[in-house]
């Protein structure tokens, strides 16, 4: 499975491109981070890439076939999308919520059977959320809800997983749970691409990174080459320090903000 975006641009209004001439790709086994400040167009990028919004120019290819020419039922059996978890007031049981991910695989007039239910239970066990199955989705905490949404996306048995800021509203522990889950999915051969506005999440977890600048252009490549002090200053307008720590024998890389860059336009940050 390979998803490639070629020379793609997008503008809500003509002459005001949000994204311009992006080229990047994600393949099986890779974890790719899309990094950028608030309002840089990260969500727009994912929505265009997945075909929810049409590119103004350029295209998305899946294994060489243009995304728009794949029937949506077939497309959504191969790729899966996890939206930002925003207190959606859906009072379904968690098990049913995850089962909804199977909908594309079953007939239009049928409902999921014992086979799907068994699959969902084993999926939940794998993700460590079996205890949530009997709860109601609208009563979950942010971290729990995010894991359920990931489980729902995985219930479609996708080859590519697209996630929109899966860790942005979570605490330390839940962030780690989500990011480690993504990494182990990639290790298992899935292609995973996620949005984040935390450079250190890209630095610590992603194989490749796409750094969105304010002018709609982007840098793409190995995370080590992309997530650097200079690039971060340019994209976020923040002076940072990149460091490496050792704890319990593992090396952890971190990136800390120092101050706003001298030429940063504060008005634009808000």
């Amino acid at each position: 499975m390979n998803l490639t975006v070629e020379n793609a641009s997008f503008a809500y209004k003509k002459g005001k491109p949000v994204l311009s001439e992006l080229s990047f790709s994600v393949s099986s086994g890779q974890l790719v981070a899309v990094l950028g400040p608030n309002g840089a167009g990260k969500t727009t990028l994912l929505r265009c890439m997945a075909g929810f919004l049409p590119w103004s120019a350029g295209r998305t290819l899946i294994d060489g076939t243009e995304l728009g020419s794949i029937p949506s039922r077939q497309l959504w059996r191969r790729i899966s999308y996890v939206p930002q978890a925003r207190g959606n007031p859906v009072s379904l049981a968690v098990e049913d919520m995850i089962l909804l991910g199977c909908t594309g695989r079953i007939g239009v007039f049928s409902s999921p059977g014992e086979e799907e239910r068994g699959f969902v239970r084993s999926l939940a066990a794998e993700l460590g959320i079996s205890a949530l199955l009997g709860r109601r989705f609208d009563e979950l905490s942010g971290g729990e809800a995010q894991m359920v949404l990931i489980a729902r996306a995985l219930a479609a048995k996708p080859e590519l997983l697209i996630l929109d800021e899966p860790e942005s509203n979570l605490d330390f522990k839940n962030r780690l749970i989500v990011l480690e889950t993504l990494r182990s999915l990639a290790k298992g051969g899935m292609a995973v691409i996620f949005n984040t506005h935390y450079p250190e999440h890209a630095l610590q977890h992603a194989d490749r990174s796409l750094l969105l600048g304010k002018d709609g252009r982007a840098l793409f490549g190995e995370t080590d080459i992309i997530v650097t002090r200079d690039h971060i200053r340019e994209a976020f307008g923040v002076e940072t320090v990149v460091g490496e720590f050792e704890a319990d024998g593992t090396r952890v890389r971190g990136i800390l903000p120092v101050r706003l860059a001298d030429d940063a336009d504060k008005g634009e940050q808000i």
Partner: protein
Amino acid sequence: MNEKKKRRVRPAAIILPFIPVIAGLCALMIGRYSVTPADLWHSVVGHLTGGSLPSGFVESTLWHVRLPRILLAMLAGAGLSAAGCSFQSLFSNPLATPDTLGVASGASFGAALGMLCGMKLVGIQLFALGFGILAILLTTLTGSGRAGRGLSGTVLAGIMIGSLFNALVSWAKLTADTESELPAITYWLMGNLGSAGYGELLLGAPPILIGLTVLLLLRWRMNLLPLSEDEARAAGVNLKLLRGTVIGCAAVMTASVVSMCGQVGWVGLLVPHICRMKWGSNQLSLLPASVFIGAGFLTVVDTAARSMTASDLPVSILTAVIGAPFFIYLMRRTEGWRL
């Protein structure tokens, strides 16, 4: 929240279908002229075996007055509940009713217009059905604007089209003859199941039955409707088609109900909420539950409406008088409303 994970083997699934049947059987015997169970049994056996029948008066009360009325109550209750239940999910709004898109108002105007033109029952019914469908077409045409804005535009358009037709109904009342037409229109607007015979059912039942069947078949997918647009599309579902089908079914059912028995208020709001409180929001069980409870509820309420007073009480008055307190009681006893 404590972990109470009971695997629910649902006795409700077995009991629910019997609720309208039992309500219907009881309703056959209850009324200003009460029929004993023995008479009912006698008549049923007589018809099945070709044996002797009870007196002609009992016969005609049972099969020509009460049965069509009970069948109508069941159909109307089931149709309105299913329509309300679908719209609440579709618009992710607990206040949605079968009339949210202006269908009932349109159908009401059609019926009022039919009465003004001095039509017979079937003519009025056809007019109501036609204007109900005209209303939903106007709503969907005006409300479907730019993609990605969700269904709020459609709801707003529905409210506008609804108020437009309500204004036209007022105009119809104003021009109506105060001796005969005005009372007829007013009475009809409050909902009355008494006018139905087998003829009206023959015309009005098929749209309701077809709508119910399609919605029931699609009920698992209807769980996707309250989700965000991207989420629903990412499930590999043709969201436009799904929404269109649900709106179409609910609208046709509502128009058909209004065309047979006027505006029966409250059922489409009350019954789905009562079922949500009791059985949760999964349409897999919610929709069938709403259908059966709706059918039973309206049968009971209509039986009360026709047997409590000497003249038929408009059923809308009773659905509210019985339904609202029951709803408040349930809301306070359970965890409250939810979607």
